[in-house]
C-alpha cells in the first residue's frame, strides 16, 4: 500500500503544471478556504496598521499630483478632440500584497492577495514602486500565484532605455551568490556601461514597454560568441516585494504601450554611433524636468497617463503647461 501512495505522490510531482494547479486550486477552495480567509483578514489588518506616516505622505503626494494634473488632462483632451485623436486611457491596475510561505515556498514564487474577482488575469505584469517584480501565473477567485524575477522560469524581453540594445533578461546568481538578472543575447559590438538602465521592451506581449528592470552591473562570461551577456542588478530587491501593483490588460490604442513615463524615465536621444554605445539612460525616480521637455526633435512626448505608482512619491508637474502631460 505504501508503494501505491508513493507512486501517486510521484505522479503528482511529474503532473503537468496545469493539472497540478487545478488540483491545488480545488484544495484551496475547499479544505484551505477558512485558513486563506483568515490569512486575508490578517494581511488586511496588518496593512491598515503599517507605516501610517508613509501612507499619509503618499496620499499627500497623490493629491498634489492630481490637483496639478487636472488642468493638464482637460487641456490634453481638448487638443485631442480638436485633432480627432482618441483619448489615451491609462492602464488599469490592482494593488495587492505579496505573501510568501517561509520554509516551504519555491524560490521566486509567491501568492498575491487579489484574484479573478479583482480583475487579475494570468500573465499580468506585477510591478512595484521601483520597477518590475514579475508576473501572475495562476489566478483563483480571490488570490493569485505569481513568479518574480528570481524564479528560474522568469524571462523578460528587455532593452536599454533608448532602444540601442535588446536582449532577454533571465535570473542568474551574481558574485557571492547574490540574486541578479542577466541580459543575454545583446549584440557583441554594443558595449553597455555599468549603471545603464534596462527596461522591458514590450516584445512578446508579456510585459508592456518601459518598465524599469535594473541597471547593468557588469559583463557576464568571456563573450566568446557573437553575442554578449551582462549582469543586471534588479531595481526591486526581494525585501521590497511586499506591496505591488498588478497591471490590467493593455490599453486598446493600437500603438505599443510605453510605461516609462510612469516611472519618470525617458530615453535619451540615441547615440550617433551605436557601435560605441555607452549610456542608455538614467533613472530619475520620479517625474522630473528630464522626463519630457517638448522640443523640435521630440515634438510629441509621451503623456504621463500611465499608472502613478502608489509606492513612489509623485511630484506635481511643473507649472509650465508644455510639460509632460500637455501633449500626447
Amino acid at each position, binding site marked *: 500500500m*505504501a508503494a501505491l501512495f508513493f507512486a501517486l505522490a510521484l505522479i503528482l510531482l511529474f503532473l503537468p503544471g496545469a493539472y497540478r*494547479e487545478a488540483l491545488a486550486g480545488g484544495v484551496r477552495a475547499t479544505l484551505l478556504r477558512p485558513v486563506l480567509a483568515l490569512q486575508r483578514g490578517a494581511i488586511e489588518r496588518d496593512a491598515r496598521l503599517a507605516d501610517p506616516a508613509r501612507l499619509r505622505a503618499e496620499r499627500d503626494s497623490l493629491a498634489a499630483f492630481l490637483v496639478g494634473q487636472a488642468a493638464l488632462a482637460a487641456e490634453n483632451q481638448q487638443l485631442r478632440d480638436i485633432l480627432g485623436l482618441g483619448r489615451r486611457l491609462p492602464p488599469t491596475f490592482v494593488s495587492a500584497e505579496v505573501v510568501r510561505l*517561509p520554509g516551504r515556498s519555491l524560490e521566486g514564487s509567491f501568492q498575491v492577495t487579489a484574484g479573478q474577482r479583482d480583475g487579475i488575469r494570468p500573465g499580468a505584469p506585477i510591478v512595484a514602486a521601483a520597477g518590475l517584480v514579475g508576473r501572475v501565473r495562476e489566478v483563483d477567485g480571490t488570490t493569485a500565484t505569481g513568479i518574480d524575477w528570481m524564479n528560474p522560469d522568469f524571462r523578460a524581453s528587455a532593452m536599454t532605455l533608448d532602444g540601442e540594445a535588446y536582449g532577454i533578461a533571465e535570473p542568474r546568481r551574481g558574485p557571492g551568490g547574490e540574486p541578479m538578472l542577466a541580459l543575454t543575447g545583446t549584440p557583441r559590438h554594443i558595449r553597455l556601461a555599468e549603471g545603464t538602465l534596462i527596461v522591458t521592451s514590450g516584445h512578446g506581449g508579456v510585459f508592456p514597454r518601459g518598465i524599469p528592470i535594473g541597471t547593468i552591473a557588469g559583463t557576464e562570461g568571456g563573450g566568446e560568441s557573437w553575442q554578449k551577456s551582462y549582469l543586471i542588478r534588479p531595481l526591486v530587491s526581494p525585501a521590497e516585494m511586499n506591496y505591488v501593483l498588478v497591471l490590467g490588460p493593455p490599453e486598446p490604442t493600437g500603438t505599443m504601450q510605453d510605461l516609462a513615463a510612469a516611472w519618470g524615465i525617458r530615453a535619451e536621444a540615441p547615440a550617433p554611433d551605436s557601435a560605441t554605445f555607452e549610456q542608455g539612460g538614467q533613472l530619475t525616480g520620479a517625474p522630473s524636468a528630464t522626463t519630457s521637455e517638448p522640443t523640435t526633435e521630440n515634438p510629441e512626448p509621451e503623456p504621463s497617463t500611465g499608472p502613478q505608482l502608489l509606492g513612489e512619491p509623485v511630484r506635481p508637474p511643473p507649472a509650465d503647461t508644455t510639460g509632460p502631460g500637455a501633449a500626447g
Partner: protein
Amino acid sequence: MNGRQDWGFWLFIAILVILHFVLRVGLGFGQLAPDLLVVALLIAAREVRAGVAAGLGLFLGIIDGSLVPFALGSSAVVLTVLGFAGARSRELNSGDSLVFFALYLFAGKWLFDTLLYLITGSIFQPGASYLLLVSPLTALYAAAAGLVSLSVYRAFT
C-alpha cells in the same frame, strides 16, 4: 505511545494539523511557528502501519503543497516518504522514551527539510548552509513543540 489509536488521538493529530495552518498561514507567523504538520505526521506514523502512514503523508502533502505555488508534488512525495519512514522507525525503538521521541522528531524534521531541498533545489535556493545552520534550529524547535504538545495530550488522557 503505542495503542492510542482512539478518536482522542486522531483529534489530537487533527488539532496539530489545523494549528499548523492557522499559525503559519492564517495568522502569518511563518517560520516563527513550529512545523506542526511534520510533527503531527511523525507522531501519527508511530501509531499506524507503514502504508497508512504513507497515505496520511500523501494527504497532508497535497494540502501543504496546495498552498505553495507550483510545488504540489514535492511536498506530497516528501511527506509520503517521511510517513513511511516514521512508521518503520518502530523497528528501531518502540518504547515510550521522551529522549528517543525528541531525537525522532528532530531527525524527522531535518530529513524533511533535506528531502524537500533535494527535490525542489532551484538556482536560488539558500543551499547547504541552510541545511546545516537553519534547518537544525527549526528541527529543534519542532521537536520541542512536539514534546510539549505530546505532554499536553498525555495530561488529558
